[in-house]
């Protein structure tokens, strides 16, 4: 099952820790399953248009991915910590 790994900063918004196994064959489907269990994460990852928030990077198996991209059964979905700022 794909695994979503969250940056530590999102730990306060996730009730069940930083790693979540979720079903789904696309990034969008996997995130929907994540949000079903962790609804507070949704506004932190998606914007009002339903797209990935600007400047939030999500990598699937090491490749920056969009919501429609495929996710494999053993994929690692990694949400990156923001790297810019003071």
């Amino acid at each position, binding site marked *: 099952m794909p695994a979503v790994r969250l940056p*530590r*900063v999102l730990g306060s918004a996730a009730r069940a820790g930083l790693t979540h196994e979720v079903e789904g064959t696309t990034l969008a489907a996997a995130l929907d399953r994540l949000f079903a269990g962790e*609804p507070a994460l949704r506004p*932190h990852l998606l*914007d*009002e248009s339903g797209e990935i928030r600007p400047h939030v990077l999500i990598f699937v198996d090491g490749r920056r991915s969009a919501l429609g991209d495929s996710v494999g059964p053993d994929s690692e979905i990694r949400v990156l910590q*923001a790297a810019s700022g003071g």
Partner: protein
Amino acid sequence: MTRIAVGTEKGGYLLEGSKDDWEVAGPLFPGWKVSAFANVDGTYLAAVGSNWFGVGIHRSANLEDWEPIDHPPAWPEGSDREMELIWRFHHDGNRLWAAVAHAGLFTSDDAGITWDPVDGLNEHRTRPDWQPGFGGLAAHRILTSDAGIWVAISAVGVFRSDDGGSSWQLKNDGVGSVAAVGEERPEVGYCVHGLANDPADPRRIWRQDHLGMFRTGDGGDSWERINNGLPADFGFVIWRDGGSGRLFTIPLESSENRVPVGGSLRAYRSDDDGEHWMVAGTGWPGDPQFTGVLRAAFDGDHRGKVAFGTTGGEVWLTDDNGESWNRLGPRFPRIGAVTLL
């Protein structure tokens, strides 16, 4: 015992103690800007924000164990507005309000678990003309009473509702506009920074505006300037201690240079409803302090206890209604919110 919640650019902190004995807890929510706190009948709320991850609200019964709420205030999906920051909570004993940027109002009747937009304001007919101030397009202050509801939006102006929030009117006559020079007096473009009112007569309101200090006795139908004794027009803070009626503000040099005049960090007070202002009490630093005080970083208990935080990360407190002031605790990150819990 005093408990002060401090919201900074890098987490939240709690200062708890009295006299010279203070304990510090935190950071709460490390990595997040903490923009607002509230105590809703023993349930504590903290609002967090991030340039990347948006906003969130957390609730706690003990200030130690925090739980995120599932659905913080949000614009409708597909909206071109962003939920940038929750600037202020306001609990009127019945309903909880949140003032947010992009500018809007939301209410909660279950202590912050679920939120509803105040469409009468959020979809106001003038909204296409709303423009942000330096701090963004933000609703940041709410006053509620049986005599009306007032909301401050930068850089739009003060709105009043006389029907419980269904409809809203702009109330800025007598205050200058920061909108384009040379135009006829515009309907919006008034950069209100802070509001405070008299609970016994809620239509008496004081207003720290971008362009000076003002007051109204008629709920905002007309405003008059009251800067007598203040060293500068500019500032963000207006606070009225409900018990004594004493007003407090912290003047800053100018819009261009938002630091205390000459580096003299001082609260100013007025005991005559703003007719005259003077330095409030003693205890102020002798050396220059080039640090500002922002609009949500000032709070009191209406019984003579008043605290504020600076952009330089210092917290100041008086427990004798501004006669003497003390700096508390460590130096924090830039402070944007101070709340007595």
